């Protein structure tokens, strides 16, 4: 019978084209509004490292002033000092560990056809790449170097490799920058982690850096401190080494454990480390280490703002209004068919058959609504990309979202059509037949 209901529904939709398009558009608009906000929330909260997010941790230590918290209420700073970064990374208590910070400097390609440019650089340790599953197009990263070892190597983003080396395999080639000659050891493939969980200094959706260099280079060449730099000591001294020896925080510290079960062990290590440092006169506050896995860190950082949820709730309300409107339009559509329904009842259709026929029609209207909703949703997301270029890399309607849109549309249409369908299936046929 479904085939028969389908045929009847298509005929009915063809007979009342304008009304049908209006119903589907009403549903589509409500669904698009919901899906645009939901897409943003979904994409923002998407696990950036689904294979290992529960064992990759961000480390926070409370080295702040005795009488004031780094972040109220009583939270440690989000970055660590150079000393702590070096000590913890070189203690090798985790499978991988890497501290990193953002910096910048001039890149002066040897090819005269490529003008010099200011490169945004991530200074990091070699285990940054395997820890965050960074994809390589050519070559690879470098090993975590001993603390005083300086090696002038670099990894280029795909875009930078395109810009400087026209996209060829540039591994082994040299690149003058920061006043030194760096050897390219790797070129990344497309890599736009969104949210950019490992360093949200400039926001969770800031584009990735142009180049990557070993963290020791930052100290060796006294590169500027990008991202968040916070200090609480008054007299730091005015040289770079004084900054590195200070309690100023600038370095994001991440570790990857072999398994979640190793977390208590790492927490113990961290606590022991803090106690040792207390013995050296540091860490005047009560121990307050925070070690959060990636998803916990995203929640901690409130990557999805409360405004976004507010928009989503408003969009849900809008969908509700659209549903009421669609229900009213569907009711009008079915009322126009009262005499046909009455005739079908007289000819032997029971209430369930009429209900099925009407719901099949609303189902088709829902599918049309989904199509219209997807088109509106894509247009809306394009508009967001246009207005907020930082979102470009991740704002997209992927297959799961598309399926959710279709599902919500069909569910909405059935909800909107249910009461009119029940109503029409229960009409007394005698009143409409002559």
């Amino acid at each position, binding site marked *: 019978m479904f085939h028969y209901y389908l045929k009847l529904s298509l005929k009915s939709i063809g007979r009342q084209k304008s009304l049908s398009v209006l119903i589907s558009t009403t549903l589509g608009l409500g669904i698009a509004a919901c899906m645009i906000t939901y897409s943003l929330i979904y994409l923002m909260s998407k696990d950036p490292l689904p294979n290992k997010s529960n064992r990759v941790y961000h480390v926070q230590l409370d080295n702040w002033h005795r009488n004031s918290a780094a972040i109220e209420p009583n939270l440690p700073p989000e970055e660590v000092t150079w000393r702590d970064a070096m000590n913890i990374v070189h203690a090798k208590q985790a499978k991988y560990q890497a501290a990193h910070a953002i910096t910048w400097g001039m890149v002066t390609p040897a090819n005269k056809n490529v003008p010099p440019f200011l490169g945004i650089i991530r200074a990091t340790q070699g285990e940054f790449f395997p820890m965050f599953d960074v994809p390589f197009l050519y070559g690879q990263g470098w090993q975590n170097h001993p603390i005083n070892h300086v090696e002038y190597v670099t990894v280029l983003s795909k875009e930078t490799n395109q810009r400087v080396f026209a996209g060829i395999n540039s591994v082994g080639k040299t690149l003058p920058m920061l006043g030194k000659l760096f050897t390219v050891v790797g070129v990344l493939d497309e890599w736009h982690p969104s949210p950019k969980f490992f360093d949200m200094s400039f926001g969770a959706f800031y584009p990735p850096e142009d180049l990557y260099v070993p963290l020791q280079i930052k100290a060796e060449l006294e590169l500027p401190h990008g991202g968040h730099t916070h200090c609480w000591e008054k007299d730091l001294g005015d040289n770079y080494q004084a900054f590195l020896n200070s309690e100023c925080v600038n370095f994001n510290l991440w570790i990857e454990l072999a398994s979640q079960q190793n977390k208590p062990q790492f927490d113990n290590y961290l606590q022991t480390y803090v106690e040792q440092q207390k013995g050296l006169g540091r860490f005047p506050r009560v121990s307050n280490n925070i070690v959060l896995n990636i998803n916990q860190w995203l929640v901690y950082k409130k990557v999805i703002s409360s405004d976004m949820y507010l928009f989503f709730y408003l969009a849900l309300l809008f969908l509700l209004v659209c549903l009421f409107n669609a229900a009213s339009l569907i009711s009008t559509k079915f009322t126009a068919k009262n005499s046909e329904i009455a005739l079908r009842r007289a000819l032997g259709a029971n209430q369930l058959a009429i209900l099925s026929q009407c719901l099949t029609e609303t189902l088709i209207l829902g599918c049309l609504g989904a199509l219209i909703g997807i088109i509106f949703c894509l247009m809306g997301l394009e508009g967001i990309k246009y207005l907020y270029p930082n979102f470009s890399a991740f704002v997209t309607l992927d297959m799961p979202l598309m399926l959710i849109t279709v599902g919500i549309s069909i569910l909405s249409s059935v909800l909107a059509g249910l009461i009119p369908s029940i109503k029409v299936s229960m009409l007394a046929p*005698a009143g409409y037949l002559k």
Partner: protein
Amino acid sequence: MLKMTDVKKVFRTDLVETHALRDFNLHVGEGDFVAVTGPSGSGKTTFLNIAGLLETFNGGTYELDGQDVSNLNDKKRSQLRNEKIGFIFQSFNLIPDLNLFDNVDVPLRYRGFNSAERKKRIESSLEMVGLAQRMKHLPSQLSGGQQQRVAIARALAGEPRFLLADEPTGNLDTQMANSVMDLLKSINAAGTTIIMVTHDGQLASQARRNIYVRDGKVSEVNDTDAATAPHLAAV
């Protein structure tokens, strides 16, 4: 076959209570051709709707083919209607955007026949009413008489025991009305019981049996020669 005993039907609104049928008693045997006449508002159509299981009633008993239908649920009533009753309406009630084939197909779909069986029955019933060549036409392409023939074909396709006709010739000119009446008589002659509500005394006189309804009751029954019944002459 069709037996109504003391059937009552009351329509109620907030202000008014209308007794459409009061202690309505009627027995229609197999193969009968009954014409139901009576003034407007006498309860003829209400009787037909109840007989066709399109309406419920408030009291009394109604047996259709030996089965008490008083307490049947919607599914059973619809099934009974589909299998045992065919309807013919004054305004034909064809679905305008379905062709003749699909119009006749409607009751068969709800019967659950397979497509070959449905095709056979549709073609045969359209053949019977002389419209087999036009089964792909839309109702709007036919005359009134032809449309009523399609409605009859639709009613017959399911091979019902009863044919309930409400003013079947009310919208037709005399010539077409006679042709439809001839068709009904031949259907009756083939064994189908027909109950026909009409205002037309001439048509009623062609039925085997006449009943006259007044104020919701069967007030007169003429089983022999309807043409001589005094009330019919006045209709």
